[in-house]
């Protein structure tokens, strides 16, 4: 690689970061840097051609249709109050344990995650019911907001998942495999959280009620399952369609969206306004995400033409690290970036450089996707930019941000433990494939 290529590549990265910090919306910053890069590395007609065709070739793929469909499905579930019912059902099952309300919150989030692809929506929706109740029943602000923010991140691990879709898009990895690989780690995370919360209320005085309260009958538990039928049905529609071979991921998404729409329409109240609003919000979000996808693609292309990613791969292979060590090294940037930016941005910014290394080193791309998602989850609950914490604060304004971030510390530790386990025992993620 020539010195000028390296300089150019670094200049591109630097310029892009400057624009980001200067508050240029991320998608536009990527577009601008990518455009500048192509103009500098290619002859003018070549740059012109690439710029004139890129937006289309970066977005016109059938596989990408899943994103708006799952967004719409999540939106319908949100509007239909499914989050509240998930909470009520979970409460009947685990509410009587010490720390029961917090554990209930975790499983309510896991349940809502099974029908929504968004971590923010999961946090927001469960926070509405869970946080006020926890505060009323004597939980500390830290535990109440930390729990709902952290458990909300299950939204992007348990399928469907917007983040996994974006990972699939930018690395050409199978969406179905990623979804299947998210299930076991997702359930495991929920269980670990529950155990941790149990310990927390037992060990830390004032964290929350540490005694069991009256048990519910088996009959009530059975009824609770029946009452959360919407979640069960929608999850079965989506994962069943994929697993039983009725259709592909795209088709499963369409079924899920149709199912969620049907639920909203049967609920009656205000239904057309809800659907209308859902369609518009889905449209806006899709445009925003794809602006990012297109921008990141163009930036990645410009970076490729400077040969920087190719040489980064070569350089890293010189160290001849064992796969697990390399995996850890590759995850570090995500933990750092996660402090400042959201999951999608983080993926789209880094994957053009990191993913070639993943492929070259023979790291399982599906596993890596799950690991990066885990890092994104951590990023969502760490300061200074912790979107899930912000969402909880938005929903329940009396929460103190500092307390909330303090409350997320134990969850971050659990996340790190799980990441370690996933690296040590790949099968936890890959067993269903």
């Amino acid at each position, binding site marked *: 690689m020539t010195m000028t290529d390296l300089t150019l590549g670094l200049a591109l990265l630097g310029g892009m970061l400057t624009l980001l910090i200067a508050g240029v919306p991320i998608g536009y910053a990527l577009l601008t840097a990518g455009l500048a890069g192509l103009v500098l590395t290619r002859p003018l*007609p*070549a740059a012109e051609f690439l710029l004139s065709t890129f937006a289309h070739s970066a977005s016109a793929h059938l596989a990408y249709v899943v994103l708006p469909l799952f967004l719409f499905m999540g939106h319908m579930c949100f509007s239909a109050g499914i989050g509240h019912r998930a909470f009520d059902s979970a409460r009947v099952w685990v509410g009587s344990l010490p720390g029961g309300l917090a554990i209930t919150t975790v499983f309510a989030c896991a349940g809502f995650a099974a029908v929504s692809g968004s971590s923010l929506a999961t946090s927001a929706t469960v926070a509405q019911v869970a946080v006020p109740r926890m505060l009323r029943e004597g939980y500390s602000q830290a535990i109440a907001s930390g729990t709902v923010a952290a458990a909300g991140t299950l939204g992007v691990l348990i399928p469907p998942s917007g983040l996994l879709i974006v990972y699939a898009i930018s690395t050409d990895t199978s969406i179905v495999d990623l979804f299947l690989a998210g299930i076991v780690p997702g359930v495991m995370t929920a269980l670990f959280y529950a155990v941790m919360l149990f310990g927390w209320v037992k060990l830390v005085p004032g964290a929350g009620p540490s005694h069991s309260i009256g048990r519910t009958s088996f009959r009530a538990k059975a009824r609770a399952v029946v009452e959360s039928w919407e979640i069960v049905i929608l999850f079965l529609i989506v994962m069943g369609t994929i697993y*039983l071979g009725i259709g592909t991921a795209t088709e499963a998404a369409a079924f899920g969206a149709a199912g969620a729409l049907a639920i909203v329409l049967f609920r009656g109240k205000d239904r057309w306004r809800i659907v209308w609003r859902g369609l518009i919000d889905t449209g806006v979000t899709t445009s925003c995400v794809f602006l990012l996808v297109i921008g990141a693609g163009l930036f990645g292309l410009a970076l490729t033409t400077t040969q920087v990613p190719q040489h980064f791969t070569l350089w890293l292979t010189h160290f001849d690290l064992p796969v697990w060590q390399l995996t850890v090294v590759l995850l570090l940037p995500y933990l750092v970036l996660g402090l400042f930016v959201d999951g999608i941005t983080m993926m789209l910014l880094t994957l053009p450089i990191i993913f070639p290394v993943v492929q070259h080193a023979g790291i399982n791309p599906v596993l890596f996707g799950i690991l990066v998602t885990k890092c994104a989850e951590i990023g969502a609950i760490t300061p200074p930019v912790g979107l899930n914490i912000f969402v909880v604060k938005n929903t329940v304004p009396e929460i103190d941000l500092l307390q909330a971030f303090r409350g997320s510390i134990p969850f971050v530790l659990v996340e790190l433990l799980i990441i370690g386990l996933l690296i040590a025992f790949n099968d936890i993620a890959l067993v269903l494939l």
Partner: protein
Amino acid sequence: ETKLVYAGYITRSAVATTLDEWFMDQVEQRSNGRITFERYYSGALMKARDLFPGLTNGAVDIATGAPMAYNPQSYPLSNIMMPYITDKADAATKAIIELYGSNEEIKQEYERQGIKMLWSLAFPDGAIWSNRPIHEPEDLQGVRIRAVSGIGWAMEKLGASPVPMSFTEAVEALNRGAVDAVTNAPFDSGVNVGLPKVAKYATDAGRLGINGISVTGINKARFEGLPEEDQAVILQVAAEVPGQFAKVVNAAIEKAARRMVEQGGDIQVSVSTDAQAAKWKAAVADTLRGRYIESVSRVTKNGGAIYDQFVALVRKHEPDSTYTPGLEAYLKAAGKQ
């Protein structure tokens, strides 16, 4: 000193790309480093649809693609490699190159786009990978099959429902049973993406055979702007590529066949007898020829003549073929034949 930008959309391991690499290495060597290549494989610079327009535009200097499949409006005549013509990749390659050399109308298709065609290669032969046995044309009734282009036409004619999904999605769809069968993959890429692990049956479907070609072209203005000695080197090496093809493609098929033996498990493979193959061909040959003539009618009335000329060229080269179709190679490697 000349740096040429090369871009392709086909994976690094495919035969066409292997030969592109061989070509570029040779040119770099024989020009004593006067010519070098900046290489982008697997669509890293441009996606399949943009490759040939990009070549016309000068956005790349050399490209390997399938313009007849991705830019059919500009390259209708090139879509001549219909299934059920032959299952000999080397004969198909020789025939297609001879056709391009001798048929003014096809040559014009590239000239008009400012492209000098360097060579064209047949993709290895295809098969139908399925979840249910398919021996006779009648077995295709109602089968949901991933198929595009000419095979799509043939499958439709035989009563199947062609579904034009992307190839990667198709493997998954077959695995989960969302489609009953998958076709259109050259044998080696089919094995590489794991179709033998996913499918219960594989058949040559009455020797549907070769059904696609790749074309490698150079931007004409760029080429003509090169010093004459450089032009000479490029033409010299380009002329040797088809000769290299037989060797490389046979090795690729053998390797894929061995890999299929290792991973195929209990997949049931069937290849057609001459009589069976004749029956399949009779069922679709006229349809395919007719669809070709129809699809080129916008640009020429000579569709039928071009098609017949191509088939005659294939027949001329078939006797010298050393190519073993994929599933036959598998049966040999597995000791079943």
